[in-house]
């Protein structure tokens, strides 16, 4: 509804242009950025923009330079909750605040994910290694006189042996698997790789409203009888928790006032739902009080206690809240001696000023300085806890002046608004979600910095931060919240305003004035940081500052204002229930239950992925040495080829595949959430230590096992190891049928080929066997396998599968001819076993030393 050219018109939102005068009433969505010129109790919900959970009053006065702060602006796409008003359209479409956020969101990208960087790094390393080894072998074999073709074949063989074929499958399997697991824990993963990113996260920038808190105002404290009491809370089962005061005396009066002086009510009779979750009409504070009253009155037993109580005091008249009076009052019948009761609530100092007495246990007492002091202290205390405080007062109207049926007039007040009896204060807060505190603690013990970035006020933010232990209690906090001008130039930690403390609270207005270096200094030096009153671009700025600091940043948020930061973050996490569609679109992951605690699971899962990938790569790489050394020995020492290309393929693409993938299913080690997040610069997925350990330790052991089998078979058939040196040329000569063994027997080519085949099979089988040992040790990086257990059923079946597969390869008639294998005797198959045991024992000792001496030389050399 707009007024254009002096005429009322009903037009569609798209057709609204600059300069239109729009008429807005409650229930509308603001069609553009509008400057308010006329307001009647106009309240808007800006929570999607700023994260403030309370409705905000809009009025024509300009109160601030910042359009998001000032009271005379209504933003495009926000909801009008109450009142009516008029305003002039000053921005439309993409030019609105909301439109600009959308534009920023679409512009920023977070760049490649850590895991894809790691994989790229891994490919580069393994490519280089494979290329160097293969080309060296090629050159050596060319020098030693092989023809080009067979040298090329060997080069390809070595190349194939070096490339871990199963790794792509493993990566995909572990990512998909985890995404599925996370889905069960109410995390929807939009981008597969995001799962791992969460594991490498070192900083979580969390929005407050709706993520850390419930986004539901709740009565936290009340002040009556001169004391602050903690309010009873609603437990998960709908029963009150904690001990409540008996609803009598001064407290009873306070509760009567709180129950009656309200325009709020429950929407439906859904009494089977816990009180906290019931839907209400009216604004957040009123709903909070209503729920509290219901809780106190019903004690979780009698439903609809408030409604029944109110029926005893029918409402005669009410004066709604307005910004000039700063209170609301209503008059009810049902007082003692058929009198009327006037109940009133509003801004505490205002209500106190209207009162002359105060209700105590000994009846009303006149308000003196002492009481005023007490009041001020309570008010400051509650406010300091970030709570929103309301004052309550009542007056029992004398029945002789106001007999039953008296006509109260709202326009020309014919009732007293002074000399009231002050009852007390009720304070409310948007409390932290249950479990958030634990989750934050878990994150912190996992070395992850949790930073609060909110659009809410610094005091509220700080209070919540303290409650969930983002800021420790009793710690010195540097406050950067005054609206003073920052000193010119850069500030450094420990100088000027940046005091040497652990914690800091930064106001958005200040953030705007800080130089980039100052922000970097804040980000790098304070461990407990709260950013309050931040704008969407500032959230982005904060994320970028942390990323500059080398952190991997996760951002959680639900509002439109979070979208750019969500997009920029290494991993953006949106809220599934409270989240706006824009934020969900920008995010990589969605918490379906809006619970911050799910992030901890995510972090754990992400770390498991990284760990398991490491293990899988270590497992797969190890067999390369056993696969390459036969070729090297063939070329360099002239041994008849101990292992064929085919056998290599059977290992890499056959028996190794399932176990490698099964490592993705491996359970976490017990220290996974106790170590700091990895440093993206040095803690690579594949590092020199992993390659060295896999190749030079376990790989060499595996190769010795293979050669042992090879020589064993050769010995059994008459070729002693010392006679095999340099035998290659005679052995490979197709026309030579008289190659003598160590016993003087002469072998024709066909028999030699058969013998070599069984050597290949033997080498293959012993590799399979030592890979068993390797699989056992790859299960853990630090723990003993005894503590880790054998609960990974995928792996256990994988182990059996390797045996079954090798039996099929070696013993299926027809197939073994195609695969160039031969059936082996039982004794031959057992040669690899002592080596498998050796590998296992060796690694258990190594891990034991690592556990005993973390950071020692063994750790530095071999911990991958």
């Amino acid at each position, binding site marked *: 509804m707009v007024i254009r050219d002096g005429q009322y018109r009903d037009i569609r939102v798209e057709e609204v242009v600059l300069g239109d005068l729009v008429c807005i009433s409650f229930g509308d969505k603001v069609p553009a950025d509008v400057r308010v010129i006329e307001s009647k109790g106009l309240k808007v919900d800006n929570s999607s923009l700023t994260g403030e959970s309370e409705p905000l009053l809009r009025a024509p006065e300009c109160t601030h330079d910042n359009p998001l702060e000032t009271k005379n602006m209504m933003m495009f796409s926000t909801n009008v909750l109450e009142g009516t008003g008029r305003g002039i359209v000053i921005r439309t479409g993409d030019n609105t605040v909301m439109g600009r956020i959308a534009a920023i969101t679409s512009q920023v990208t977070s760049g490649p994910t850590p895991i894809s960087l790691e994989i790229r790094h891994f490919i580069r390393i393994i490519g280089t290694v494979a290329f160097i080894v293969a080309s060296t072998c090629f050159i050596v074999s060319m020098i030693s006189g092989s023809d080009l073709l067979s040298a090329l074949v060997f080069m390809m063989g070595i190349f194939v042996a070096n490339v871990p074929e199963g790794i792509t499958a493993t990566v995909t399997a572990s990512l998909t698997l985890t995404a599925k697991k996370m889905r069960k824990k109410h995390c929807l993963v939009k981008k597969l790789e995001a799962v791992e990113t969460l594991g490498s996260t*070192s*900083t979580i920038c969390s929005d407050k409203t709706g993520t850390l808190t419930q986004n539901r105002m709740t009565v936290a404290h009340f002040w009556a009888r001169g004391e602050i009491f903690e309010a009873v809370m609603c437990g998960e089962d709908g029963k009150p928790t904690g001990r409540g005061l008996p609803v009598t005396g001064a407290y009873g009066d306070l509760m009567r006032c709180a129950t009656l002086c309200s325009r709020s009510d429950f929407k439906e009779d859904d009494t089977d739902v816990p009180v906290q979750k019931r839907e209400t009409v009216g604004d957040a504070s009123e709903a909070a009080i209503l729920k509290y009253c219901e809780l106190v009155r019903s004690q979780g037993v009698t439903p609809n206690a408030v409604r029944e109580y109110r029926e005893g005091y029918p409402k005669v008249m009410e004066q709604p809240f307005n910004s000039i009076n700063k209170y609301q009052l209503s008059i009810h019948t049902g007082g003692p001696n058929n009198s009327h009761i006037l109940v009133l609530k509003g801004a505490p100092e205002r209500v106190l000023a209207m009162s002359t007495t105060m209700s105590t246990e000994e009846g009303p007492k006149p308000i003196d300085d002492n009481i005023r002091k007490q009041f001020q202290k309570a008010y400051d205390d509650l406010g300091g806890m970030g709570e929103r405080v309301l004052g309550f007062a009542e007056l029992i109207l004398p029945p002789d002046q106001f007999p039953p049926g008296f006509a109260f007039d709202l326009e020309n007040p014919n009732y007293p608004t002074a000399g009231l009896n002050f009852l007390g204060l009720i304070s409310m807060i948007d409390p932290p979600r249950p479990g958030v505190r634990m989750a934050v*603690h878990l994150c*912190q*013990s996992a*070395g*992850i*910095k*949790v930073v609060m970035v909110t659009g809410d006020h610094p005091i509220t933010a700080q209070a919540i931060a303290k409650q969930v*232990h*983002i*800021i*420790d209690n009793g710690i010195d906090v540097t406050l950067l919240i005054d609206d003073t001008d920052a000193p010119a130039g850069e500030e450094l930690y420990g100088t000027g305003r940046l005091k040497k403390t*652990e*914690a800091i609270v930064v106001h958005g207005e200040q953030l705007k004035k800080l130089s980039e270096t100052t922000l970097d200094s804040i980000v790098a030096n304070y*461990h*407990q940081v709260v950013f309050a009153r931040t704008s969407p671009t500032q959230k982005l700025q904060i994320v970028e500052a942390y990323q500059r600091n080398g952190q991997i940043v996760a951002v959680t948020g639900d509002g439109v204002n979070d979208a750019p930061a969500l997009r920029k973050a290494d991993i953006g996490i949106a809220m599934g229930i409270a989240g706006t569609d824009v934020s969900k679109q920008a995010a990589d992951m969605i918490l379906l239950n809006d619970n911050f605690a799910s992030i901890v699971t995510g972090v754990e899962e992400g770390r498991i992925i990284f760990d398991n990938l490491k293990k899988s790569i270590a497992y797969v790489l190890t067999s390369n040495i056993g696969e390459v050394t036969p070729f090297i020995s063939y070329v360099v020492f002239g041994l008849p080829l101990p292992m064929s290309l085919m056998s290599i393929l059977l290992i890499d693409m056959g028996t190794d595949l399932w176990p490698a993938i099964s490592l993705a299913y491996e359970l976490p080690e017990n220290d996974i959430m106790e170590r*700091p997040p990895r*440093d993206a*610069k*040095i803690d690579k997925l594949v590092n*020199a230590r992993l390659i060295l350990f896999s190749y*030079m330790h376990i790989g*060499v*052991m595996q190769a*010795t096992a293979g*050669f*042992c089998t090879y*020589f*064993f078979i050769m*010995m*059994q*058939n*008459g070729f002693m190891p010392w006679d095999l040196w340099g035998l290659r*040329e*005679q052995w490979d*000569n197709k*026309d*030579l*049928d*008289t190659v003598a*063994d*160590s*016993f*003087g*027997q*002469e*072998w*024709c*080519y*066909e*028999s030699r080929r*058969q*013998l070599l085949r069984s050597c290949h099979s033997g080498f293959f089988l012993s590799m399979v066997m030592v890979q068993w040992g390797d699989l056992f040790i790859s299960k853990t990086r630090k723990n003993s396998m005894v503590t880790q257990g054998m609960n990974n059923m995928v792996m256990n079946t994988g182990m059996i599968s390797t045996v079954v597969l090798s039996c099929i390869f070696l013993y299926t008639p027809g197939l073994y001819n195609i695969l160039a294998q031969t059936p082996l005797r039982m004794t031959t198959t057992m*040669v690899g076993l*002592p*080596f498998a045991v*050796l590998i296992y024992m060796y690694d258990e000792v190594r891990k034991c030393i690592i556990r005993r001496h973390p950071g020692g*030389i063994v750790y530095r*050399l071999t911990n991958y």
Partner: protein
Amino acid sequence: MANGRAKKEEVDYDHGWKEFLYNKRRGTCLGRTSKSWFQITVFYIIFYALLAAFWVGCLAIFLGTLDDKVPRFYGKGTIIGINPGVGYQPWLKENPDSTLIKFNLKNPESWKPYVDQLDGYLSKYKNTNGTRECVGDDNNSNLLADGSAARPCRFSLADFDKAGCSAAKQYGFKEGKPCVVLSLNRLIGWSPVDFAPNSVPEQVRDRYKNGSIALHCDGTTNVDKEHIGKTTYVPKEGISGKFYPYIFVDNYHQPIAMVRFETLPRNKLVLVECRAYALNIEHDITSRLGLVHFELFVQDKKE
């Protein structure tokens, strides 16, 4: 619990390749200090020494389970089997991929390598240490039971000398009538089994003698069969059976026979296939058991 207070150790990186190679600031070369390099070297030396010891130990244990006279697997049902292949000499080690015997009658240098090779091959028969004269029915069949006292039968080259295949005559190469040595692969435990009198193969019927392994050479293809001409076998009945079975002893004399190609065509390549005949020798073209292929090429043109 402090928020992320668990500080990481300060890590100093190598910046770029140059610093990786040698970092003056940290005194590292290839990312390690000299002390670290020393430690790592010592570690690997000890590690590999122990590993090698384990490996050698395993092999030694396996070795200990073996007999030093016979391999674990030989004879029927093993890879080497019981069907011997046939070998020929002179086969030049210098040219291992070729089975061609090619020489020019006008050029003594051209057959010298073959003569040298045969000289070398036959020289082992000149060593008669530890052997005995086997006359009449005396043979090697009890050798295995004799154990370390075994004295294998002595093989004499006298027959070859008589037939014109002596070293002095340069094994017939000079005349263009080359003698080629044929042998059966040594297989422990293998002895020839005689044919029944009426089932002796046609090719060797005229010269077959019980207890021996008769030999027959012919052209591989029909064209070669026309060209090959007359062949003489020395001794006539082939390889003598009294030297079987083979056992692993010092100076075992492997029995051989020679075939002399009397009328080889000049300047023509002849593909020859020689087969050995006994009841327990099967001929298999693909695995080349019981037979051998080689080529002869005699030139007489001036080069």
